[in-house]
């Protein structure tokens, strides 16, 4: 069972939770930019949870499925068609054998996740199926999908296989994307970084009051922030230290950069802030040109919110699994 790539889309990569544990040898985590969306896509198709999904960027790919399959799309709402049938997002959809799934653009947001029941069955690299474009790690040396690629789909194990006689249809229920996708472009929570106090007063104020916009050259490694320039009180000479996804650096140009999923493991620029983990997926959904505002929070508040989100996500994953079982879509 496999899926063929007829059109690759703008930047479509296989992503899972990433590659933790190898930063000491220079290997970053990579992984899905919007982790809750990736996890919920897997849940909707009855996967165990750690399967790779396709992360589509701004414009999705066109794919042909050799056999009948269950799929789900989460993250940024994306146009999805099989022939004349439009597929709803955040809902499991059944596609018969030979279906050509055309994914289009996203009216809002930057990244959608396509999960298939059984997951994409490629060889893990250092324990992960994630494509790290920068470090060239993952399936096909971590590159994005190309025309003609054929991705094997795994066996769904004990779950019921789709009925090959059925036509394209969506499951009668789906998830409300509302808490998991930020339609309102609310401010992004920012913690103070190690060198926050080195910013001059006007820059400290600007960082929390002003609007930035996501730069055109943003990617999986970094979101560049345009529109405002920040300054240190005095130049800082720093030696290389750790860097993480969410670290806001200030290079000499004065344009802040937020490192994202493919952050290098070390960096030498001043670290003026750290995006709260709970808001990092929301920043990952801002596309070039989108506005961004920041609001300060304490580390304690950020941890409390992270714990609350993990509880809510855990409860929803459990609920989805129970619902699929009731529907007879999965065995226990």
């Amino acid at each position, binding site marked *: 069972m496999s899926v063929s790539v007829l059109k690759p889309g703008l930047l479509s990569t296989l992503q899972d939770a990433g590659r*933790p*544990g*190898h*930063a*000491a*040898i*220079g*290997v970053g985590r990579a992984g899905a930019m919007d982790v809750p969306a990736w996890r919920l896509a897997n849940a909707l198709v009855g996967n165990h949870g750690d399967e790779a999904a396709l992360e589509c960027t701004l414009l999705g790919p066109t794919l042909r499925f050799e056999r009948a399959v269950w799929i789900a799309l989460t993250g940024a709402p994306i146009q999805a068609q099989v022939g004349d049938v439009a597929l709803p997002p955040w809902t499991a959809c059944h596609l018969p054998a030979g279906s050509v799934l055309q994914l289009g653009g996203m009216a809002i947001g930057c990244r959608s996740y396509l999960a298939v029941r059984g997951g994409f069955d490629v060889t893990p*690299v*250092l324990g992960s199926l994630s494509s790290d474009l920068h*470090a*060239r*790690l993952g399936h096909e040396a971590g590159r994005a999908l190309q025309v003609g690629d054929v991705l094997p789909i795994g066996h769904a194990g004990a779950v019921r296989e789709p009925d090959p006689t059925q036509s394209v249809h969506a499951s009668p229920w789906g998830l409300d994307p509302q808490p998991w996708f930020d339609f309102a472009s609310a401010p992004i929570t920012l*913690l103070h970084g*190690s060198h926050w106090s080195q910013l001059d007063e006007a820059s400290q104020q600007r960082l929390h009051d002003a609007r930035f916009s996501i730069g055109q050259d943003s990617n999986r490694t970094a979101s560049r922030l345009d529109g405002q320039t920040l300054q240190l009180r005095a130049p800082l000479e*720093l*030696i*290389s*230290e*750790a860097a*993480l996804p*969410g*670290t806001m650096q200030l290079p000499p140009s004065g344009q802040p950069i937020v490192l994202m999923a493919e952050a*290098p*493991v*070390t960096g030498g620029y001043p670290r003026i802030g*750290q995006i*709260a*983990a709970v808001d990092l997926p929301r920043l990952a959904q801002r596309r070039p040109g989108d506005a961004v505002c920041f609001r300060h929070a304490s*580390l*304690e508040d*950020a*941890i*409390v919110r*992270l*714990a609350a989100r*993990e509880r809510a996500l855990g409860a929803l994953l459990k609920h989805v699994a129970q619902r699929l079982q009731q529907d007879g879509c999965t065995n226990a």
Partner: protein
Amino acid sequence: METASIQFEPFAEDALLLRFDHRIDAAINARVHAAVATLQRDLPRLECVPAYASVLLRFDPLAWRDANTADPHQVLECAVRAALSAGESSPRAPHEREIPVCYGGAHGPDLVDVAQHLDLTIDEVTARHVAADYRVAMLGFAPGFPYLLGLDPTLAMPRRRDPRQRVPAGSVAIGGAQTGIYPEQLPGGWQLIGRTPLRLFDVAATPPSLLGAGDRVRFRAIGEDEFRHLEAEQRA
């Protein structure tokens, strides 16, 4: 290990930075590696990311919260201070690696410029590069890229004004007061003085990186014939 001078800095919800100092210095870096060895033994569920003068610890913030405090960083700091205080001051002997290098020619296209800039002969540059004892301070920039401490200060050389788009895998280079090895073909601005036929990073190998932080490294000058021979051996 004495821990009073270590600064603990919360870095993110799941990360705590231990800072030993703000300088690039072999003795400070040795303390970093000693601390990592102790923490890997006593708190194996932490991920330790060593740098020149600091270690980043990554942990599960929800697992490190206790009943009395919402802040896992304080709980972790106590555990780390206790482990480091009890840990022996001289950890296991570091691995020693010999890296064969073919200096100059097509393998080290900047060697002539480096010698000229430093007012040395090509042989003097090579001899001084080979004579030193190096230590892997940290890995970063790309998978398996070692930042080596120990370069003869007379070989310090500014980075190239126009960085190369493609530095060949195995290139041995000088950047400022440091020397390093490009594990893969990468863009880079360091001065290329030679090349090793060894593979520094291979996802199929265990461990994938030939060098680890804290390892000792020596270079050995080899000729073109031995380079080709070793390169063929590596491919086999």
